[in-house]
């Protein structure tokens, strides 16, 4: 019996050793794979994970002379200062309000364009129209600001010298015009691009559905209402949810560069992203800037989690996790 036990323990040892060897072998085999990931891992650490610890900065009073690490902790002071200012209310209101209106508007426009494009898809001109309406999304915000300037410039702009010759409008100093200007510019830049997804989904709908509807005497509008839109519904809901996850983010270029960073337009153009830039780089107010930036990051994380959980319920394939 005891001999048997000794034998089995010997056997175990051999097995263990073999496993160890196997693991070593495995590691040696996988070494190239680890090496391939190394640059990426280093980059993720520098670009993504170190800044996550940088969140702690928002709870410090940064003093460059003392160095970041030695700067004193101040608890929630930065947040308190930030939320006492009128800026905080303005930027949060603007960020959410623009997003809320644009999410709905973008969706309606994108689906509408997709329906129209689908209707003319067989014409040759469709092959020209589609690339052209997608082109504006390739234009940088700086060039965009030149395009807008060509229309709105006080003394030379197209609008002032053609339509408002007698009493020129001060576009760049009057805040109340900018919700409309920004909305038009936003549509110009993104409508074509966002319609592409819906065009692809409509293209994937079984054509025989429309054929049988036509035989039953359904007109085009009825076909859209009873076939296309119901089949697009899952996609529409998913895109809505995904954009809700980004409701605290704004297009920095559009809100900062297109109004030319003009201080007189804060009321309608200041968003969290433009505030963070102004406070950090222009006004050198690291405390409030980092408080706003952390606020955005944390709320953004919560919203992304919620929206993805909801997306997963509807269509796991399109969820991030």
């Amino acid at each position, binding site marked *: 019996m005891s001999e048997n036990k000794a034998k089995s323990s010997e056997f175990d040892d051999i097995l263990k050793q073999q496993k160890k060897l196997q693991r070593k072998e495995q590691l040696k085999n996988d070494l190239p794979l680890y090496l391939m990931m190394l640059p990426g891992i280093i980059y993720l650490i520098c670009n*993504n994970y170190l800044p996550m610890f940088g969140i702690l900065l928002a709870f410090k009073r940064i003093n460059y002379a003392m160095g970041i690490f030695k700067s004193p902790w101040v608890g929630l002071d930065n947040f308190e200062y930030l939320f006492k200012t009128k800026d905080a209310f303005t930027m949060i209101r603007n960020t959410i309000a623009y997003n809320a209106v644009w999410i709905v508007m973008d969706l309606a426009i994108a689906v509408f364009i997709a329906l129209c494009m689908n209707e003319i898809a067989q014409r*040759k001109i469709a092959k020209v129209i589609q690339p052209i309406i997608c082109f504006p999304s390739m234009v*940088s915000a700086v060039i965009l600001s*030149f395009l807008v300037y060509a229309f709105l410039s006080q003394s*030379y702009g197209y609008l002032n010298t053609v339509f408002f010759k007698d009493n020129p409008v001060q576009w760049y100093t009057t805040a109340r015009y900018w919700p409309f200007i920004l909305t038009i510019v936003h549509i110009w830049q993104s409508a074509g691009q966002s319609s592409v997804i819906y065009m692809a989904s409509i293209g994937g709908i079984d054509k025989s559905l429309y054929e049988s509807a036509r035989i039953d005497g359904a007109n085009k509008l009825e076909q859209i209402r009873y076939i296309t839109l119901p089949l697009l519904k899952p996609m529409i809901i998913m895109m809505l949810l995904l954009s809700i996850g980004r409701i605290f983010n704004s297009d920095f270029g559009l809100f900062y560069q297109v109004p030319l*960073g003009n201080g007189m337009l804060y009321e309608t153009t200041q968003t969290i992203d433009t505030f963070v830039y102004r406070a*950090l780089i222009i006004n050198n107010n690291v405390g409030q800037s980092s408080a706003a930036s952390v606020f955005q990051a944390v709320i953004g994380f919560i919203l992304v989690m919620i929206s993805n959980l909801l997306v997963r319920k509807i269509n796991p394939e399109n969820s991030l996790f």
Partner: protein
Amino acid sequence: MAKNKNKIKLMKGETGFHYTALVIMILMMLFCVVPLILMLTVSLSSEASLVRGYRFIPEQWSLDAYFFMWAKRATILRAYGLTILITVVGTIISLIMTSMFAYPLSRKDFKPRNVVAFILFFTMLFNGGMVASYMVWTRLFHIKDSILAYLLPGSLMGGMNVLLVRNYFNANIPYSIIEAARLDGAHDWTIYSKIMVPLSKPIMITIGLFSALGYWNNWTAGIYYINNPKLYTIQVYLKKLMDSIQFLKTTDLSNEAVLLASRSLPTESARMAVAIIALIPILAVYPFIQKELIKGMVVGGVKG
């Protein structure tokens, strides 16, 4: 026969709908093109005719703006060259890093792949915010006023792109090919460079194009990290040009120094000409790459 196939058969009552859609889309196309045309014609107008305002059809055509730029070519060509350099280098590094990261993730026999996938994935859900990122790059890595500022912060390797490439590997390259190569004694580096990358050209092209576009259009890195005018890319140069116009607008022009400064600035038409020049490379390649770009918009759009 082929022609007949393309013809649209319309039933009664459908023509109205069809032509409405056609008109709407043509209007939409014009809406997208018109601002670009205005910018182009302004750049081709003589300075004198612009005094009465920007017009779609200039009263007097002129190439003066482009000659003016040629006179200032030292600055503009430097900015242009730097932009090209950043775009090319950034895109290549980004493609290599992304695909090298995606390959192990696609290997089902690679044990730590779930852990690594999570590390990557978490960066897509959460970030430290702009200020934290700025502090890390400037205080820890000191990239202020160097070309690295255009390349490193942001999306040298974006999580979404890695996942897209990994999914492409998984969906289009059967594992049996990799196994066969290994039996023949192929090293992982060989499998990656001789099998995976060449077989995944479509996704590499799509991601490469978007990454190139991102680098070409990247001006925010310039305003966050760059103060040295010698390191301005064409986009940053344009941005600073716009700033100086605004500065002059808000300053008393009776001040002689300012007036002198305003003379050395590119004229009205030349500003638009610089913008056109920055847009030309995109305009030039767009017709050839638009199919890939639009495909990419579908894939990327669905995944946010």
